[in-house]
């Protein structure tokens, strides 16, 4: 722990696809934590859901040996994020302290270039001003900006939680403890498929899990250096 630099963290998520059962708790938890708007049936039918996190489902094989694979897909917080350099106004940028890919809502002017350039299709756009009819708006998280129309948004790794934990740790003069920060998805996940932690911490759970031979990064051949590590699901074959 001693070698950890409290000023510099590198947050990493490990998603064990063998544990993930696709239940969707993370999807809802994410929406509730981050004030993600719901858009209704017609908009969703037209591909305009605001889900920051979606569970990509693949069909494998032919009847009757059909199988399903679930893969939660969210912003991969790439180290070499393709979305960042294309933004004309620095609305999406890299936070050097947390090594996160940040979306600055106030700066965004809505060119949507970042979304086109994201190989993970992880970004969503506020097509309209979405509403939470009173009193539904009471549950909006005061730590997270409610986005208005015309701007991009995406998974933030629950940066509000990271920041809170970091400040607390800084005040106590210690590094952030492993497991102290949990994004909403990891916290809700019933199967503990999602594990979150600081890569700089050599004893962290994510480091341990990432060493697994099942580990891979999605589309890593593109050189984006994603910070979400998937552990592949290896089904037993009968």
């Amino acid at each position: 722990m001693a070698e950890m630099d409290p000023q510099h963290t590198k947050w990493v998520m490990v998603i064990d696809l063998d544990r993930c059962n696709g239940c969707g708790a993370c999807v809802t938890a994410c929406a509730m934590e981050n004030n993600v708007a719901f858009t209704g049936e017609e908009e969703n039918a037209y591909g305009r859901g605001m889900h920051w996190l979606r569970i990509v489902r693949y069909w494998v094989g032919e009847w009757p040996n059909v199988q399903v694979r679930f893969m939660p897909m969210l912003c991969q917080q790439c180290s070499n994020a393709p979305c960042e350099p294309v933004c004309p106004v620095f609305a999406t940028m890299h936070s050097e302290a947390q090594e996160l890919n940040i979306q600055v809502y106030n700066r965004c002017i809505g060119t949507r270039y970042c979304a086109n350039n994201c190989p993970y299709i992880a970004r969503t756009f506020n097509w309209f001003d979405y509403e939470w009819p009173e009193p539904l708006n009471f549950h909006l998280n005061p730590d997270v900006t409610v986005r208005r129309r015309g701007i991009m948004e995406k998974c933030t790794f629950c940066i509000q939680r990271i920041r809170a934990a970091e400040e607390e740790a800084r005040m106590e003069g210690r590094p952030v403890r492993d497991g102290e920060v949990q994004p909403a998805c990891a916290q809700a996940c019933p199967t503990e498929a999602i594990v979150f932690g600081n890569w700089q911490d050599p004893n962290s759970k994510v480091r341990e899990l990432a060493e697994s031979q099942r580990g891979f990064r999605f589309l890593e051949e593109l050189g984006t250096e994603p910070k979400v590590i998937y552990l592949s699901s290896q089904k037993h074959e009968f």
Partner: protein
Amino acid sequence: MQETTLPAELHERVEELREEHLLLDPRPREEMNRMVLEAMEDVNREYIIVMTILGLVTAVTLFGAWGYLMSKGLGLAGIRRPIYWGLFIVSFVFWIGISHAGTFVSAILRVFKAEFRRPFTRAAELMTTFALAGAGLYPLIHLGRTWRFYWMIPYPNQRWLWPNFRSPLVWDFLAINTYLLGSTMYLFLPLIPDLAMARDKSKGWRKVLYTILSFGWRGTEEEWRHLQKAIQIFAWAIIPVMFSVHTIVSWDFAVAMKLGWHSTIFGPYFIVGAILSGISAVGFILYMIRISVKNMRYFIRPEHFDALGKLLLIISMGWAYFFFNEFLLEWYGGEHTVQEILRYYTTGDMAPVWWTMVICNILIPWLVLWNKNWRRKPWVMALMGIIVNIGMYAERYVIVVGALSRNRIPFDWGWYKPSLVEISIALGTFTLFFFLYGLASRLIPLIPVWEVEEGHHAHGLKRIGKGVVKTVAELE
């Protein structure tokens, strides 16, 4: 002119040549001035009706729809995840392409001393300016928060934030601004003598207007010298700017990590496409001017359509070459997603658009334009202008929407359907273009009279044996 020295038996041939070539058919400058001024002052009822309709339609379909779009959000457009760019960007690229017409005609043809350009340089340059005005709207229209567009401008601000010069959109912004300013100035410089002419010949508000706009031009030697030098510099300098503009527009796509876009050939491919659509649009516009503006049959003749037709054929071949290159090499690459994209283009949902592109840009021009008689028919060239531009619009649609519809995650593929608001705005820029053009046709001399007169000076006839040919003297 030497025709007096020609034998009488060649008289018929000389008449033929004269009818054919504007520059062999001189008329006194006063008369040409009068003709041009007459055309400008010809504000008749039809014109007013057409302009009112165009103006109202533009106000509603473009600005009305845009205002509605801004007040409700971009969701009114048909774009969706993952097709974040739609008709707006298609139209943007299209109009940028059209804007290449003027520069091509007045800069490249000027540099290469292609004499047939003389009567319609201005008509083409006006297209550049107004097409850029239309094109320049789209980056604003397509913004989620249009009212924050100025954040792209590099200026010191209280946010301490400068634009990101690594973003192709900032390159775009710079290139389009350079091009818009450059081509407007380039339109204006040769216009000054003509405005001075109009100043001398008109009365009332026009006199005031032209007095202001002509900046006290008198046609002194110094003025001409500086003007011609400047035009020369512009002609050379604006060509690379023009190339850079469409190259950078193509880089919006080519630098992206998006299969179907990520292609090194996009720069020249886009430029050739732009010139193709620009040149063909010139044909259409000349036809419109010829039929709808007074006295223009004198200035715009079949020879001009013929020349444009030849250019068009060559450029269509050039476009086909790049198109083939792009397609073949992508296909040979064998990348899985790219294969799917190409399949989607050729046989998928995008096929009607894709085949429209191939037919309009290659098949029809190649079948029609080899024939001189067809090339010389203004209406044929006008039709070609429409057809090729449909093809080029289709090309941009395929590239923007088609490539975005397919990505590396099949789960997140998409389809796209332009919404009414989008279509309305796209049509609105067409009416805006024609509206501005119509306005300009009555406000500024559409024909650069001094350039035509210069051409008259430069052209002559020469007898060689029993024949007679056109000769050109190099005056510049």
